[in-house]
C-alpha cells in the first residue's frame, strides 16, 4: 500500500493532467471532476495491482481513460456546454476556440479517446490499443474517422 502522504503528492502533481485527459473524453467540467475523483480513489484502492512495468502516471492515466469512457457510455446524453465556462481565448485565436468546442462534441467517445491519447499523451497506435483494450486496427479506423470528421467541420 502506498503511503497516503506520497499519494497526496502524486495527486497534487498529476491532478490537472489527468483532468485534461478526462475532460476531453467526458466534455463536461463537473462530470470530468467526478471522474478524476473516481480515478484517484480507484488508483489508491488498487495500488497493490500496480506492477511497476510502466510509470505510475501511465497506469493512473489508463484508469482515468477507462473511467471516463465507462462514464460516457453509461450516460449517453451528456452535454458539452461546460467548455464555455472555462474557455480562455488568450492563447488561441477565437476561430480556433470555436472550432475546438465543436469538433470534440462531433466525435464518438472512442474517437475522442484515440485522438486525445495520440495527440495529448503522445501515445503510439499500439499503446492506445492497449489502453483502450482494443485492437490496433480499431484504433486506426477510429483515428482516420476522427480526422475525416475534422476535415468536414473545417470545410463547413
Amino acid at each position, binding site marked *: 500500500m502506498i503511503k*497516503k502522504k506520497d*499519494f*497526496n503528492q502524486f*495527486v*497534487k502533481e498529476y*491532478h*490537472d493532467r489527468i*483532468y*485534461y485527459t478526462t*475532460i*476531453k473524453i467526458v466534455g463536461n*467540467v463537473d462530470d470530468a*471532476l467526478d471522474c*478524476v*475523483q473516481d480515478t*484517484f*480513489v480507484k488508483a*489508491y*484502492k488498487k495500488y497493490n495491482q500496480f506492477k511497476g512495468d510502466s510509470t505510475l502516471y501511465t497506469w493512473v492515466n489508463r484508469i482515468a481513460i477507462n473511467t471516463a469512457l465507462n462514464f460516457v457510455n453509461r450516460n449517453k446524453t451528456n452535454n458539452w456546454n461546460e*467548455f464555455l465556462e*472555462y*474557455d*480562455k481565448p*488568450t*492563447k*488561441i485565436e477565437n476561430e*480556433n*476556440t470555436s*472550432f*475546438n468546442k465543436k*469538433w470534440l462534441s462531433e466525435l464518438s467517445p472512442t474517437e475522442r479517446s484515440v*485522438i*486525445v491519447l*495520440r*495527440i*495529448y499523451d*503522445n501515445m503510439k*497506435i499500439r499503446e492506445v490499443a492497449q489502453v483502450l483494450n482494443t485492437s490496433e486496427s480499431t484504433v*486506426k479506423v477510429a*483515428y*482516420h474517422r476522427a*480526422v475525416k470528421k*475534422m*476535415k468536414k467541420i*473545417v470545410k463547413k
Partner: protein
Amino acid sequence: MNCSEVQLKFPEILREPKKYSTEMTHVKNCKNCKSEFDVFKLMSSSIQNMNDQIPLIVSRQNQKIINSKIERKNFANRMRILTSVAAVIIVSLISIILYQQSGQGQFYYDNLNVNDIAYSDEDVEMEFELSEEEILDYLITSENTNNLDEIVEDKFFDLENKNGS
C-alpha cells in the same frame, strides 16, 4: 509508402519533422495528405491549448475532495477490520458464557457410570485404608471384583492372620 500509413504518423511527424523527413516529403507532395495534415495541425494545436481551462481554485478543491475521500476510505477499512475483530471476540465470549451456563461439564460427570471407571491398584488400596470392615463389605457385595481377586485374597489373608494372632 501510402497515404494511410503517413496519416497514421501525423502526431509523430508534427512532433519530430526531422526524424520523419520521408513522411514529411510525402505530405508536401501529396495534395490529400497535405490538406489532412493541415486539419490535424489545427486539431493538435487546439487540443494542446485546452490545458489552461481549469481554474486553480477548482483544481485545489477537487484535490481536497480526493484526499478526503481517500481518508474516508482508509477510515472505513480500519473500521471494517476493527468490527471484524470485535465480532470474533464477542462471539467467543458469548460462546464461553453459554457453555458455562449450560453446565455441560457437570452433565458429563453426572452421567458417568461408576462401573466404567477402571480402578488402579493404588486407588483400591487407598479405599482399603479407609476402613477394613467397610472394604470387606463392599468387596463381598460388589459384582466388580474380577480385577481385584488377588488384592482381596491378600486382604483376607491379612485379616485372618490378624484375627488368628
